[in-house]
């Protein structure tokens, strides 16, 4: 099973050329890679064979790939337990969406929110599956983060649980689309702690590793979206990346990379060069005007 896949260009009706690639590595300390990633395109197509109609423009958008699904998950629990949890979560989500999802062809409010509900349902089903399959006698078992983007150009829908992250780069500026669901963030919200420098010792830093929401534990998915533009670069990653690579370096690599494969591999490589205490996974999506 390869650890990466390049989906290449989307259908000709897509106004941008979409280049997506994922890379993952066990890191230099952990014995098992508990991260998972998933990249897929969703198709609902109509191929017109013959017609008396003069104008076929209305059908152009129905003739190719209509959506991309990108997922990263970071299993928690140690050894193979976390790997099983993240694997179960990603498999369940992919299967659920493969079975149920319709593509959203317009920004009609009801249609768009029905689509978002399907994404949330997939996450809820993954949560139930992880609990059902892996919970121990005390009802506690391995868990996993999950960050998912469903892309229907130009709109990227983001569903997020835990502390993996989604970013996008525009005009050299890196913006974080997700917010970590950790005890540290809760303490910040409550005004109990102040933001310190990354890697600062003390209880605040340790609280960054305590998740307040995770699949297999309890979930409070956050939902969001962003409209992308040609030239933007999208990144989904696990926290193994951001523990070693600050935003400025991520922005530099994403801005310089010649392809999604180059970008994702360079992000993993620089993490390894800096010690890679955790598993690391990066999915990079580049969107170029066609």
């Amino acid at each position, binding site marked *: 099973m390869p650890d990466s896949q390049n989906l290449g260009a989307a259908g000709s009706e897509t106004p941008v050329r979409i280049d997506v690639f994922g890379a993952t590595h066990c890191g230099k300390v952990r014995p098992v890679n508990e991260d998972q990633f998933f990249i897929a395109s969703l198709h609902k197509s109509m191929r017109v064979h013959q017609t008396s109609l003069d104008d076929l423009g209305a059908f152009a958008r129905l003739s190719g790939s209509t959506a991309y699904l990108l997922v990263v998950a970071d299993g928690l629990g140690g050894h193979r337990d976390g790997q099983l949890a993240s694997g179960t979560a990603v498999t369940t989500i992919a299967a659920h969406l493969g079975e149920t999802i319709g593509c959203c062809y317009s920004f009609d*409010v*009801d249609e768009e929110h029905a689509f978002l509900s399907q994404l949330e349902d997939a996450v809820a089903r993954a949560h139930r599956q992880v609990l059902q399959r892996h919970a121990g006698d005390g009802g506690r078992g391995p868990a996993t983060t999950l960050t998912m983007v469903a892309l229907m150009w130009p709109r990227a829908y983001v569903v997020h649980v835990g502390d993996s992250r989604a970013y996008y780069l525009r005009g050299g*500026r890196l913006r974080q*689309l997700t917010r970590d669901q950790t005890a540290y963030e809760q303490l910040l*919200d409550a*005004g109990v702690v102040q*933001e310190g420098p990354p890697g600062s010792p003390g209880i605040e830093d340790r609280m960054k590793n305590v998740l307040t929401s995770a699949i297999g534990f309890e979930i409070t998915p956050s939902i969001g979206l962003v*409209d992308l533009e040609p030239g933007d670069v999208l990144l989904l990653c696990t926290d193994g990346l951001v523990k070693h690579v600050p935003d400025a370096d991520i922005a530099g690599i994403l801005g310089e990379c010649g392809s999604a494969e180059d970008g994702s591999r360079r992000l993993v490589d620089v993490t390894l060069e800096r010690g890679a205490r955790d598993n690391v996974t990066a999915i990079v999506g580049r969107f170029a005007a066609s």
Partner: protein
Amino acid sequence: MTQKKICMVGAFATGKTSLVQQFVSSKFSEKYHSTVGVKIDRKEVDVAGGQVKLLLWDLAGQDKFQSVQGSYLTGSSGIFFVVDGTRRETLTELAGLLAMVQDTLGAVPAVIAFNKADLVDQWQVGDGDVAALRGEGRHILKSSAKTGAGVDNAFLWLASQALKTDRG
């Protein structure tokens, strides 16, 4: 159940996210987090016109790097404009945002909240500013995302107005 999309619109750091958080979860965060793109929350409410599920689109605030994208407004049944009473420039920016929404959606139910009423001693806007907007027929109120004052009233009024429209 009827669904209505409400967009939160305003300059950056006016308290849009905090107002939604207070309305949906009765929580207030002491830490400012800049919204990127759109954050979506939902809440079901009962108003005079019936039950309605509000789809709350919290749009990133307008700043020097980004303006409010009209594409996010499509299908909205109501707009919740937010002004930070402690920063007069956010009232100045409101005029442009009102015009942008008018151009994008036409006439749509809207409320304008002068937020941070808990810091009224630091306000840079006055009753004259509020009266001027009221004079244009707009629904204005004061709110505090921190204390919750005025928050439910603003959302529920907008929900009731949104229910009267055919939009969203």
